């Protein structure tokens, strides 16, 4: 999303200026704290005006977010944040609008709205806090939980296959898709900046640890020891390199991606997949880098901007049509409207 920034000559705001006086009520150690901090920091870095910023959320642990942001905010109803945010955006094109949702809120009860905000490309920063569990309702499996997950509602293991949020986003014709994690704050900030610069709906999936009900769901990607082996950090125009000594890469083996060893002499960086965030085919494949990291020859999980293209956004086209209608028919006159085309006198 792109927004105007505060153009006042006041002291620039600091991260803490975006915090409210309300006690933050997440469980100690929850990944949400880190994300809150990074969002506040990035808003300050962008130079956002608190009075010109709105944070809209649904229901869930992550959706408490607006209460902790000293901006305008609405804690709405379960799953519907995209619709509230879209309506607000259609009313006001100058606000910086941030939408906070979770995997249950955004992909279960609100799955329909997720699809439609993405395809409409409403200019909004959408942050999906994915913790692969229902936290607020105390620990049922979520639509992103892995198959066979044992929870209170699934004592014998869950039997529905998980949704892949980034693949869903690309299938919905999203124009900006990124992935980040709560534990890599530097990278998260970079991605939040990128998301904000995007004109349209920016979809950012953030892996967030729920230390109470799903502790360690993403440790394979976030833990220092395994992270280099399980993740690849994308850079536009750069090859897909990863590994402890940056000794692994991804090549195309015919139509399919394959992990290769750069140390064996068989492949060099020149042979590797070059990331192009504007390429829908490559991006589609990247969203499918979704292997279980514990599997042998698993593809690394991509982080960074998977896809970003410029497309017209919904409300811009809406306003264009309003202008066009006035150009074609003239600014509507109320008396003409009330009288209509055919009248008679008695």
């Amino acid at each position, binding site marked *: 999303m792109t927004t105007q920034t505060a153009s006042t000559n006041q002291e620039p705001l600091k991260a803490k200026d975006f915090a409210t006086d309300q006690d933050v009520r997440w469980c100690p150690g929850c990944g949400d704290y880190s994300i809150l901090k990074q969002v506040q920091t990035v808003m300050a870095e962008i130079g956002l005006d608190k009075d010109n910023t709105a944070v809209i959320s649904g229901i869930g642990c992550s959706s408490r977010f607006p209460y902790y942001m000293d901006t305008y905010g609405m804690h709405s109803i379960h799953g519907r944040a995209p*619709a*509230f945010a*879209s309506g*607000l955006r259609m*009313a006001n094109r100058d606000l910086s609008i941030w939408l906070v949702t979770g995997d249950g809120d955004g992909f279960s009860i609100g799955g329909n709205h997720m699809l439609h905000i993405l395809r409409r490309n409403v200019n909004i920063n959408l942050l999906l806090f994915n913790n692969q569990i229902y936290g607020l309702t105390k620990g049922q499996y979520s639509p992103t939980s892995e198959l066979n997950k044992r929870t209170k509602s699934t004592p014998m293991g869950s039997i529905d296959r998980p949704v892949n949020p980034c693949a869903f986003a690309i299938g919905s014709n999203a124009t900006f898709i990124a992935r980040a994690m709560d534990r890599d704050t530097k990278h998260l900030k970079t991605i939040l900046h990128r998301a904000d610069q995007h004109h349209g709906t920016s979809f950012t999936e953030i892996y967030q640890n729920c230390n109470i009900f799903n502790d360690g769901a993403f440790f394979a990607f976030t833990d220092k020891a395994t992270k280099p082996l399980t993740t690849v950090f994308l850079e536009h125009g750069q090859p897909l390199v990863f590994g402890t000594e940056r000794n692994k890469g991804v090549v195309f083996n015919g139509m399919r991606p394959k992990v290769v060893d750069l140390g064996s002499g068989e492949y060099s960086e020149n042979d590797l997949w070059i990331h192009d965030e504007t390429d829908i085919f490559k991006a589609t494949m990247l969203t499918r880098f979704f292997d279980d990291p514990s599997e042998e020859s698993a593809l690394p999980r991509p982080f960074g901007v998977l896809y970003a293209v410029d497309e017209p956004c919904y409300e811009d086209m809406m306003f264009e049509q309003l202008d066009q209608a006035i150009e074609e028919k003239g600014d509507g006159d109320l008396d003409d409207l009330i*009288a209509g085309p055919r009248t*008679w006198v*008695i």
Partner: protein
Amino acid sequence: MKTDVKTRKAVTIKFAGDSGDGMQLSGGLFTSSTALTGSDLATFPDFPAEIRAPAGTIAGVSGFQIHFGSQKIFTPGDTFDVLVAMNAAALKTNIDTLREGGTIIANTDGFDKKNLRLAKYENGANPLDDGSLAGYQLLELPVTKMTRETLTDSPLGLKEKDRCKNMFVLGFLFWRYSRSLQDTIEFLTGKFSKKPDVLEANIKVLQAGYNFGDTTETFTSRYEIKAAPLEKGTYRGIMGSEAIVLGLITASKKSGLPLFYGSYPITPASEILHGLSRHKNYGVKTFQAEDEIAAICSSIGAAYGGHLAITGTSGPGLALKGEALGLAMILELPLVVINIQRGGPSTGLPTKTEQSDLLQAMYGRNGECPIPVISASTPADAFEAIFEACRIAIQHMTPVVFMSDGFISNGSEPWKFPKSSEIPDITVQFAPPKENGDTYLPYARDERLVRKWAVPGTKGLAHRIGGLEKEAETGNVSYDPANHEYMTKIREAKVEGIAEFIPEQAIEIGPEEGDLLILGWGSSYGVIQSVVTTLLSEGHSVAHAQLRYIRPFPKNLGNLLKGFKQVLIPEMNTGQLASIIRNKFLLDVKQYNKIQGTPIATSELLHAAKELL
């Protein structure tokens, strides 16, 4: 032979034919010609439930009814005097509603073997010649044949030629009711300006129909209906759904707030979405949402952003909007939810009319959730009623449910429309920007208990709102028991307090006190007017009161009701308003109920009223 012209006080005509026979257009054109004669009138269309039912079948019959006269006309008519039947199915569907001795104008070409079979006439018996229509006056016109003959020289294909056959019937009716063709020719000229061949064919057939009446000796009667004693002024025809569109745009202009309409297609409310979408040059933003829930939620988002936000739906959609309506209520944001009622429950009778969502509008939400309810009574009344709904929403910071129904939305009547300068402004009070850095109190209230509308983007007012219970004044989340009770009561008191800002209940016609009051809401207006007019002329002590404000009720309603020995409430439901009135005023009100997807007939209500007198 010279035909004599007879004068009639009122006539009801039903145009009925196959969906493809252009009956809505014929009816519409006959209506606008009627309006120009100065008659009062009411119309109602009767659409088939299926979109493209097979031609010639009962399911494919489409109708249009017009009641016009030199006296006040209150309803589209219980029965009709004239039935235009373009085919056998149209006759079969409508014959029971034709009054005894009425006239049938039948297109004989629509009664061939195939049509009779499709209309399920037993053994292919043709009602036109088996004597079964003996009690009626039957005028047989070979419409299809004569249309084709009129157009032998036209370059149009046979299918296109046949499409002109409704003009033949219309021309014939114009002859029968002593009308000029001018108005219709002007309309056709506009409509077919880019298709000269079609235009020529339509006009030729229209004239042929007129001349057929003029030159054939078969038909000896012509009729004339004089102008009605309508108030002097400039009029237009108005349909209920159109009146809502105009009322919304007027409220937007008069409040200075841009209009946002979030909606999901649903019969019969979609007409409003279509109507508003045509008026983007009035700054109207229409949003076809992905579902009913997104429709209301996007509207709440737009309301938060400072727009006059509206969402429209019909019964099942209102059910889906319930949770979000509760949010709008607790947020205390202005919003109007339009419910064009149809037959329920569930999908019910989507193309038929009913008044069975009143209890849903009043109570259909979780928790204590008071919401004002406003109702329209006639197509033209919908203009003022929706304007009032917007005014109350904006000035009292509350969602409002606006009730109409299929009968009002699709019905039409003449309307002596106002000049925009005669319509009052709606004053809007936004919370002003704050420079001093003090904490803003989003739920501080004025003496009417109304909070201020603080729109994102306003300096110094950054604040959070949400669906969790809020602390008085600050709006911070609060689980405090006493606070919850306080807030529940204050929200209730705010809505009840609106009674101070609406007009007192008036009597439409009849005495202020007496034997019987017929109390109506919604589309029963016309039938009650008609019945009470008759009863008054017979010397009974009867009055009619019509509710526009159902929540809160006007302050004087209780006293007004107590001025009558009996109160009768006719409704197209099992007695929903009656139960609210009983509950509120402990009055033993009587009910008259009809749940058949069709309006209450004058004769039915007259009978019910007389039983009480």
